[in-house]
Each structure stands twice: as structure tokens, then as C-alpha cells.
């Protein structure tokens, strides 16, 4: 008999959480505790030696946080996950666990601004160099590979460039060089896209966005496929005795979830960017309705894109969910939909764009995405402000770009607010 392959709508509600062993509570209890008692000194020793599974201290693991980790691992079709205090923490831990001084990263040029800064500035401080490439061309990734390259990093759907990555092709490039492909899958969420099934090895999320979905809670998560051969000679930290954890050989001991175990015991334990149980619980409330919300985010965004495309006041619209978008076919091959994120520019340029943003009635001017509310922002002056003009162009952020994260309000009302703001923006 083969195991039932449950669908994402079911996993989003059930994966990682069975009724509480102690109380029978059906909903997920919030284990708001820093620490967990040992049965004996021997039990404590076994836990610290990782010879038995259990909870010690909530910086390392916590049952409420673990339910969130397992749920996202299941939704991504991965082997295991580690949660973190934010998406940036997940990304930092993924790379810091994998890389050391002298290593090199090949990354998409069209990354979220914070990710660019992490690679180009923060990791560079520790002697880890990054080459940024044109994410539209898998051959650009191949051309940038060096003997010391140890990771390829890109977004499945770029924020805010909406660049669609050919995940399978870039995975092939990474694997030909014996290095893992790390994908930031925040914008599509695991409901719209599963990069691991297309060949990626690790996925990171800002759970703050669609996973949590309500603009209330920060969180992040890293998922591993369990399929990367960490014993290929390029990752001694995975196969040699760990100086960071009293000589454990992670790959030999934990096999297909060795990376997340090492990330937990070496990086999470040391850097301490832990997700709180309360936040994990709040994010999971959002995850339960992720499939429903994503369907509506996508249909509302398509409606907005069509409206903008037909409007004479609009210069351009970028939404890969539009059938005439140059990357629409690639998108449909890899994803169920194009998310609620879209970008556009006005014929009146930057100044009209600013007036548009300031004239909205209920669309919120802020720099989050993936909220129930419709959000608007001007990336060049906010999220991508730390980048110079050349980096902004590489990231696909022109000076006139307006980003909309289309929410779950009624489409007619969203279109009404856009229309009235366009009218005001055009008047002056």
C-alpha cells in the first residue's frame, strides 16, 4: 500500500500538527516556555549529544515552532525545515551554514534589496564574494561559476522585478558544478511554486509575507530537499567532525536532513535569530488559509493588471500572469499563478507615480508585501534605496516603478481606488 499523497490545501491545515499528546488539544498549543526539563542527567547528556530527539531550550527548538517548520517543509515537498525570526535571518543562516571565507556565490541581479546588501556588503566583509548575473539567462549563471563557487542564489519570482527564474535550467548549472541552488520562494509562496520539485536544493521564505498573510508577524523559514550530495568533497563542514558541535559528523549522522540539523545546531544556536512560539502560532493561523488566499490574490492581481494595461494613463505594466507577458509560458510551467505582486509605471513618470501613491484612499503606502490589504510602494526610494542607480537597474527597479501587492479586498473596490488615485495623479 502506498502512502496517501495529501494535497496542499490539506497539508496547509494538518501537516506538522496532530492532537497534543498531553492534553488532546486539537488546535496547536502555544508552548510559551524558554526551557524544557530533563528526566535525568543521562537524558540531558543524550539530548546534548543529539542521541535522542527532544527539546532543551527554545532558541534551538520549540514544539509550536516545530509545527510551523514541518508544515512548510510539507508544503514545499521538502525533507525538513528550520524557522527563524525573519526571512533575512533564514537567508543569512542558509548561506552562513554553507559558506566560509574564500567561498564565492553566484546570485541573480534581480534580488530583493536586503538580499543584495547581505551578499554584496555583509558577506563580503567575511571574505565571501558574490557575482551578480542576469537572472533571465541561465547561461549567465554558468559563465559566472568559479572553482570556489559554493552556492547559487536566486528568487523564483523576483521582488519587485517579477523576473521568473527558469529554476530547472539554473539547477542544472549549479549541479554541474557540484553546488546547491538556493531559492527565495517568498513571492509565489509554497502554494504557487515548489522549487525543490524543479531541482532546487534549498528554499528560503520570508514567512512575514503570504505564509503569515495578514501583515502582523515577522518570521522566516529554510527548507531542504534532502537530495543534495553534501559528501561531494566541496562541503567539508557537512562531512567532517563539527568543531561547532563537539565533533558530530552531520551528513553521516542525519543523512537527508543533515543540512537543517547543522543549521539548527551551529547557526541558529549561535546567531540566535529564533522565531518565537507566539509568532509561529500566528503565522500558522495564516498558513491554514494560504491556498484560498493565494487564489484570490492571483485573480485580483490579474484583474488589476488587465485594468492598468487598458488604461491610457499607464505607461507600462509588468505582471507575468498576463498571457502576453514574455515570461508567461515559463511562469505557467513552474507555478500555479503569478502571485499578488505587480509593477507598473505612469506616463507622467516618477512625479505622477508619487502623486498616485499619495492619493490612494485605502491602498496602504508601506513596504511590506503579501498582506490581506492592498499595498503600494515606490521601490527606488524605499526597499532598494541602498542600491546605486546601476544596481537598481540590474534589480529591475526603474525610477518610475510603482509596486502593488494586491490584497483581498473586492476587486471592484481596488480598481475604484486605483482609478480615483490615477485621476488625481493625472490632474496636477
Amino acid at each position, binding site marked *: 500500500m502506498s502512502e*496517501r499523497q495529501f494535497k496542499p490545501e490539506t497539508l496547509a491545515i*494538518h*501537516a506538522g500538527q*496532530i492532537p497534543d*499528546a498531553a492534553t488532546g488539544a486539537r488546535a496547536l498549543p502555544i508552548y510559551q516556555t524558554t526551557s524544557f526539563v530533563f528526566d535525568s542527567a543521562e537524558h540531558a547528556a543524550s539530548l546534548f549529544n543529539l*542521541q535522542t530527539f527532544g527539546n532543551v531550550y527554545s532558541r534551538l527548538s520549540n514544539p509550536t515552532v516545530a509545527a510551523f517548520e514541518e508544515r512548510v517543509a510539507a508544503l514545499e515537498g521538502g525533507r*525538513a525545515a528550520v524557522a527563524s525570526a525573519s526571512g533575512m535571518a533564514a537567508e543569512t543562516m542558509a548561506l552562513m551554514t554553507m559558506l566560509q571565507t574564500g567561498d564565492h556565490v553566484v546570485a541573480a541581479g534581480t534580488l530583493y534589496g536586503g538580499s543584495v546588501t547581505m551578499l554584496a556588503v555583509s558577506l563580503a566583509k567575511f571574505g565571501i564574494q558574490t557575482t551578480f548575473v542576469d537572472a533571465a539567462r541561465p547561461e549567465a549563471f554558468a559563465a559566472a561559476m568559479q572553482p570556489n563557487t559554493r552556492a547559487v542564489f536566486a528568487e523564483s519570482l523576483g521582488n519587485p522585478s517579477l523576473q521568473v527564474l527558469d529554476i530547472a535550467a539554473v539547477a542544472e548549472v549549479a549541479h554541474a558544478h557540484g553546488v546547491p541552488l538556493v531559492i527565495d520562494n517568498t513571492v509565489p509562496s509554497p502554494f504557487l511554486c515548489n522549487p525543490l520539485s524543479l531541482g532546487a536544493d534549498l528554499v528560503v521564505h520570508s514567512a512575514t509575507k503570504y505564509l503569515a498573510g495578514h501583515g502582523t508577524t515577522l518570521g522566516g523559514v529554510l527548507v531542504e530537499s534532502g537530495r543534495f550530495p553534501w559528501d561531494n568533497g566541496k562541503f567539508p563542514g557537512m562531512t567532517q567532525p563539527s568543531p561547532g558541535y*563537539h565533533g558530530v559528523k552531520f551528513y553521516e549522522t542525519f*543523512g537527508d536532513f543533515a543540512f537543517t540539523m547543522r543549521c*539548527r545546531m551551529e547557526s541558529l544556536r549561535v546567531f540566535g535569530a529564533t522565531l518565537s512560539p507566539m509568532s509561529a502560532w500566528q503565522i500558522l493561523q495564516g498558513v491554514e488559509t494560504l491556498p484560498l488566499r493565494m487564489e484570490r490574490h492571483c485573480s485580483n492581481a490579474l484583474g488589476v493588471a488587465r485594468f492598468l494595461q487598458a488604461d491610457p494613463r499607464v505607461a507600462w505594466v509588468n505582471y507575468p500572469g498576463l498571457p502576453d507577458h514574455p515570461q508567461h509560458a515559463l511562469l505557467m510551467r513552474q507555478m500555479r499563478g503569478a502571485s499578488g505582486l505587480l509593477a507598473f509605471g505612469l506616463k507622467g513618470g516618477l512625479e505622477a507615480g508619487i502623486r498616485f501613491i499619495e492619493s490612494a484612499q485605502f491602498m496602504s503606502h508601506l513596504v511590506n508585501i503579501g498582506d490581506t490589504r492592498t499595498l503600494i510602494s515606490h521601490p527606488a526610494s524605499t526597499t532598494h534605496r541602498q542600491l546605486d542607480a546601476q544596481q537598481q537597474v540590474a534589480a529591475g527597479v526603474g525610477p518610475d516603478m510603482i509596486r502593488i501587492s494586491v490584497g483581498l479586498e473586492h476587486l471592484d473596490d481596488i480598481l475604484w481606488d486605483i482609478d480615483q488615485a490615477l485621476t488625481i495623479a493625472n490632474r496636477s
Partner: protein
Amino acid sequence: MHNDNSTLRDLLRQCKTIAVVGLSAEWHRPSFFAAKYMQSHGYKIIPVNPRYAATGQQILGEKVYASLLDITQPVDMVDVFRRTEDVLPLADEAIRIGVKCLWQQLGVQNFEADQLVRLAGLASVYNRCVKIEHARLFGGLNWVGVNTGVISARRPH
């Protein structure tokens, strides 16, 4: 052949005495991790390793045997921490001493041995860790964020 969750659960419920072939006495070796975990979850561990049997050294407080054929008590499961190419003779011995299951550990997958024991009516598991599967199905593995594949509205026990 892939074993589903209920088959593995039944196996781990029925096989309470486990002969661990290739068990190391060194605390940081995976075989020691697994045996220690199973022992602390109520399983009787019988170490099999000629290296230690000769010196009379115990592992986890248990007498070490040089061979499966030397064991004088009933064994339910043979758990193999040896290279894939060394498993076939162990499968033959496992059948001879009348165990219920041959379990080849993570990274060990001798398909001939799998065939042989199945034809003899034994259960067979390969390329899996007995500790990890126990923790996956009976609780514990979920605490480190592993996708256990368990979907249920019943309390664990």
C-alpha cells in the same frame, strides 16, 4: 519495495529485540546514536561486532557477539550498519536465526539481500535509519522540523 507508515509502525511495535550488526562503542558514531536511542525507548539491543566480542567489552551495558549465529536468545530484527556489499551473508544468517525483519541502515541497500529475506517471508527495510523512522512515526523527529508525513486526528501514544 517501499514500506508504508502502518507497516513500519507495526514492525517497530513487534520487533522489541534488535541485533545491531556493526555497532560501534564510540559515542559519536551513528550506530551508537541509533542503538542508544532504541535502548532508551524500551528495545533490547544485542551488539554484534567481532572487534569487541574478542575482548569481552560491553556496549551500552550489553554483551557483544562476534556473529549473529552466536546469539543464544530469540532476535526480532537484524539492524545492519555495514557496507552494502557485506549484507548478503548477514541476510542468510538472519533467516537462519529466525528473525522477523532485516533492516539495512541509511546508505545501506543490498537489493539481493532484500529479495532473499522477502522470499523467506521476512520483512525488509533498506536505506533507512531505525532511530529516525521510530522518531518519525512515534514522535520526536517532528521537534526538529522534519517532514514526518504523519497526518492524523488522533493523539500520539
